[in-house]
């Protein structure tokens, strides 16, 4: 691919017209704006503008103590609500040199993989909805409930599990709860064939996804794509395999590509479905291994919170934490200084941050009808800031704060009712 041609902004010729998609659009689950230049139904140019939900989390995080930062990190994304804490705890533990007890490592991995199951099922449902196949959406989300229920049983909440903490985990998985996990795993194992049948052997799904939104192997590498998006193109990149961490270091984990399904990787949406469904199967195996081989022992190496706060305040150094989230690599960089409770630097990299650029080759040359499914194919998670909004009504674009928006809304209500 010609490097100069890749930009977030590619414009077509003069005969084109432009169609804006987003920030509010039924195809998008989170606010992001695409401006497509179209020639008939064909996409010849695209400009991507994220940032409608930028909350300044890193800015906030550099102004509060690390335990508070942990829960802030959990709220970067509601779906990867364990991935960011896992990466952050590892970064801080690497920086401060804190050991994590083996049992805690296993529990972190179990919750992480459960999240992968529910996230991939969520994605599969959204993908079906984008194709206009709502029935498949409802069927998929119905079975997704089981993993959410299990997470609620194990952690005490359906989202934002609050399980990892620096130096360990906060809750144990006792034997009386482990059987619930086995039950859920059996449930999913029995469903896998049906899922693969419903998605991969359905004619209308195949018609809409095969050779649509192709990301070539070379583009995936040049654009630094991560996670299932990269693996669908045949790039065998998976942090759990490449640079193991936590309990993943005890297991033989292999990056899943369409080759495991017996097909050549093309990098289209269909391959994305293959990779994600097979990863659900992989997660089931990992959880089972973890449950069976979970060592006994303590949960936190520094169990007292005041002692933990003191240890973190004393720590000096920098650390990198990486975790293979359902959508790809999550990366946290933290620098701590002695005597300062807050992280001096905290940089968060969510998977969509890398995959943003992968959208461009995927969109180019496709049709309007493919926009939703291609947009969904990288499983975007637009986790970003602000409660201000730009409004352009004839004059200069101006920043409206919430009070003003409330006032405008009330005015309109009055106008309609009166």
């Amino acid at each position, binding site marked *: 691919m010609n490097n100069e041609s890749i930009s977030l902004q590619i414009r077509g010729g003069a005969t084109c017209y432009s169609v804006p998609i987003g920030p509010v659009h039924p195809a998008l689950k989170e606010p992001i704006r695409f401006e497509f230049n179209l020639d008939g139904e064909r996409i010849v140019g695209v400009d991507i503008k994220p940032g409608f939900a930028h909350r300044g989390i890193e800015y906030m995080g550099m102004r509060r*103590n690390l335990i*508070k930062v942990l*829960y802030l990190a959990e709220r970067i994304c509601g779906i990867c609500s364990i991935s960011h804490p896992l990466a952050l705890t590892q970064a801080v533990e690497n920086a401060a040199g804190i050991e994590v007890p083996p049992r805690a490592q296993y529990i972190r991995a179990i919750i992480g993989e459960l999240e992968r199951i529910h996230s991939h099922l969520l994605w599969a449902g959204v993908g079906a909805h984008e194709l206009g196949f709502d029935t498949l959406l409802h069927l998929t989300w119905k079975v997704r409930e089981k993993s959410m229920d299990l997470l609620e049983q194990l952690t005490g909440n359906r989202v934002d599990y609050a399980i990892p903490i620096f130096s360990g985990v906060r809750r144990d998985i006792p034997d009386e709860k482990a059987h619930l996990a086995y039950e859920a795993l059996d449930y999913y194992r029995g469903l896998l064939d049906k899922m693969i049948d419903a998605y991969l052997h359905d004619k209308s799904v195949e018609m809409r996804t095969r050779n649509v939104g192709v990301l070539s192997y070379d583009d995936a590498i040049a654009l630094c794509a991560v996670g299932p998006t990269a693996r669908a193109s045949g790039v065998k990149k998976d942090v759990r395999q490449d640079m193991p961490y936590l309990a993943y270091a005890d297991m033989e984990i292999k990056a899943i590509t369409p080759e495991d399904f017996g097909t050549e990787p093309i990098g289209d949406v269909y391959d994305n479905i293959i990779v994600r469904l097979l990863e659900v199967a992989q997660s089931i195996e990992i959880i089972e291994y973890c449950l069976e081989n979970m060592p006994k022992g303590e949960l936190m190496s520094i169990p007292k919170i005041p002692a933990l706060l003191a240890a973190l305040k004393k720590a000096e150094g920098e650390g990198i934490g990486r975790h293979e989230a359902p959508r790809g690599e999550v990366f946290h960089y933290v620098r701590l200084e002695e005597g300062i409770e807050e992280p001096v630097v905290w940089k968060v990299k969510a998977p969509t941050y890398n995959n943003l650029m992968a959208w461009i080759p995927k969109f180019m040359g496709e049709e309007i009808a493919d926009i939703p499914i291609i947009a969904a194919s990288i499983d975007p998670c637009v986790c970003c800031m602000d409660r201000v909004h730009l409004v352009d009504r004839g004059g200069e674009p101006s920043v409206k704060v919430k009070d003003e928006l409330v006032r405008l809304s009330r005015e309109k209500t009055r106008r309609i009712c009166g």
Partner: protein
Amino acid sequence: MIIGTLFKQLFGKPATNPFPVKYMPRSVTALLEKVGAGKAAINPPIPVPSDLRGKIAYDRDKCIGCQICIRVCPANVIEFLPEEKKIRMYVARCTFCAQCVDACPVGALSTTDEFLLADTDRFSENLVVG
């Protein structure tokens, strides 16, 4: 084949839990009044585990006023009352991480399984603990 599943579901029970009522009532407030008076029943929510991280309960007598919970609370829910050396929590801001429960050295805080906390006033009696 998916069609088979569809027909099975056509005659089966829907997956949706009809909490609180199956269809939108003509008037929500009237229904709530009726439920309050015991004249109507609503469908219960799906049972939650006993160790759900719900609304935090506060044992005022046990509290020693050490303020560790205030240091760890990510949402600044907890206010310190200096005269009495006790705390007050504004549940409307709570993120239900229960870190304060873990941090409390004397066990004055605990989680409950209460989660139906919607209210029109964020300072209502139900949403201020302590």
